[in-house]
């Protein structure tokens, strides 16, 4: 019997310490130094260079807790500069698309690629070419793991991260048990914190043990998703590449404030400004929202001031993406949930019930709607050209004293004409 054997070959491309690599691109002085990047509001450590990891700084650790190590070892600290990271992420993904393979952008710094049309013995070389191209074109180092399934490509990536070449292929390896044995169960893709606890209770500590558990046991004791993970570890592809991003159902914009705020007006400005961001976002995706939810809360860690948290949703008569209407409605419910005398730490808005804007014509649509749509479009175009918030609503405030803390921002943005990197000549 002869048949063409078709093995699936999936690659996971993962940018190494992505935010740190972005900060290093135009700042070679920190190329070999320990570097960390902080989350919004300079709260926690969200990206660490290899050198910073070696110092024992943990992922997600609050900045103040790591401060001693940071000062003692001259660790370079950066506030997150998401517009820079976003631009470099787009560049990395566009570079990957040049390889004529299907690609799924999985997160800001990870993508799956389908390399099935390369032969088994050339696929690792292809991986190395991809890695070199991304590094040369964008300056971002990556690790690439290649295997028969998404879950195994994550495992391969885990190994690639520790290798000088940065590329590992598990294609053609008959017995993966010795490799899977070294992968902790909580490092397996799709196994969360709850599942890890459950597996450990049942004597499953590594990927090999999960792989060798019977499907019936897994299905009986947990769920279908877990048996999918086990199948994938056995080399049976169960999770396909998601090539088209599914349209979102909701859009959240929320931030912690740089300092606690007490005045209604400041809270009002923040909420209005989040509404503007959210409505711009859904307009860019050609969606309309059925409702807006507003929430506010005080810090849960400062109980001496009393904890207060509340939220309220308001439905629009007709689904909309009109900034003015969204802001107006959000502010009216903010008035309802605002309590005087609290020190607010966080507020946010969520646009829900998102649907396609095209199908939104109805009995009550009028020429006025078209005029508003045109106004929104010209606001978006102007802001795209001249930078965020060139055109805004007065209710969003001008001073923004409530805005985020970003004490260590590198202030470079490769996609913003006014923040371009400067180089000495």
């Amino acid at each position, binding site marked *: 019997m002869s048949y063409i054997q078709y093995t699936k070959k999936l690659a996971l491309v993962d940018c190494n310490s992505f935010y740190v690599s972005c900060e290093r691109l135009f700042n070679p002085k920190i190329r070999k130094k320990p570097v960390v990047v902080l989350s919004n509001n300079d709260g926690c450590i969200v990206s660490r260079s290899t050198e910073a990891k070696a110092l024992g700084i943990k992922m997600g650790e609050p900045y103040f807790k790591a401060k001693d190590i940071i000062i003692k070892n001259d660790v370079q600290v950066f506030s997150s500069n998401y517009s820079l990271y976003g631009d470099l992420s787009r560049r990395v993904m566009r570079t990957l698309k040049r390889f004529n393979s299907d690609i799924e952008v999985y997160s800001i710094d990870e993508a799956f690629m389908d390399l099935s049309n390369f032969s088994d013995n050339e696929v690792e070389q292809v991986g190395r070419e991809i890695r070199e191209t991304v590094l*040369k074109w*964008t300056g971002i180092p990556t690790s690439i793991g290649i295997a028969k399934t998404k879950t195994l490509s994550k495992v391969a990536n885990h190994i690639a991260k520790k290798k000088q070449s940065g590329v590992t292929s598990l294609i053609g390896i008959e017995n993966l048990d010795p490799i899977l044995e070294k992968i902790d169960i909580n490092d397996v893709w799709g196994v969360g914190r709850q599942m890890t606890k459950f597996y450990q209770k049942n004597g499953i500590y590594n990927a090999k043990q999960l792989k060798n558990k019977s499907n019936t046991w897994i299905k009986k004791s947990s769920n279908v998703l877990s048996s999918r993970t086990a199948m994938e570890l056995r080399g049976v592809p169960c999770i396909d590449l998601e090539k088209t991003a599914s349209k979102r159902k909701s859009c959240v914009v929320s931030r912690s404030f740089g300092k606690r705020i007490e005045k209604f007006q400041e809270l009002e400005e923040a909420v209005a400004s989040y509404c503007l961001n959210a409505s711009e976002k859904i307009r860019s995706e050609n969606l309309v929202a059925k409702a807006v939810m507003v929430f506010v809360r005080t810090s849960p860690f400062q109980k001496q001031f009393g904890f207060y948290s509340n939220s309220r949703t308001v439905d629009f008569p007709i689904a909309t993406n009109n900034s003015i209407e969204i802001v107006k409605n959000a502010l009216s419910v903010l008035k309802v949930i605002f309590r005087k005398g609290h020190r607010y730490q966080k507020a946010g808005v969520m646009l829900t019930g998102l649907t396609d804007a095209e199908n939104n014509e109805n009995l009550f649509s009028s020429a006025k709607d078209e005029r508003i749509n045109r106004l929104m479009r010209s606001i978006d175009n102007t802001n795209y050209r001249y930078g965020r918030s060139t055109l805004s609503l007065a209710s969003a405030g001008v001073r923004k004293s409530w805005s985020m803390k970003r004490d260590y921002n590198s202030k470079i943005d490769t996609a913003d004409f006014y923040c*371009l990197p400067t*180089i*000495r*000549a």
Partner: protein
Amino acid sequence: MKLTIPYYLHKAGAGFPSPATDYIEEDIDLNVHLIKNVPATFIIRVQGKSMVDVGINDGDLLVVDKSLTPKNFSTVIANVHDELVVKTLVKEKDKQFLTSGSKEFSDRILINEEQDIFIWGVVTYVIHSVH
């Protein structure tokens, strides 16, 4: 980087249409012509006067393509002792070195990866305001 929206000079309406309408399709989009490899191209601002003799002035904008391999006398962005600088690359028989474009600077820096001297990207265009 964004393409501009094509626009038409002539309004549709009664009367004889302008014969030029057929020929005007859209604005010239410099991105298309100056940027060959979008994900690998960065716009960088120059600070300093060491490259004045090759036409690069303080405050100019450089179009830098990281994907290109530099030729002899290419203007490049180089990493020199962990600082990015604008230089001219000169290739000789068995070595390559960097030099600044000004006559007043007679520097020669040998390319040496081990000493952290290497090419970062190749400058393809200089944008200089004369107004």
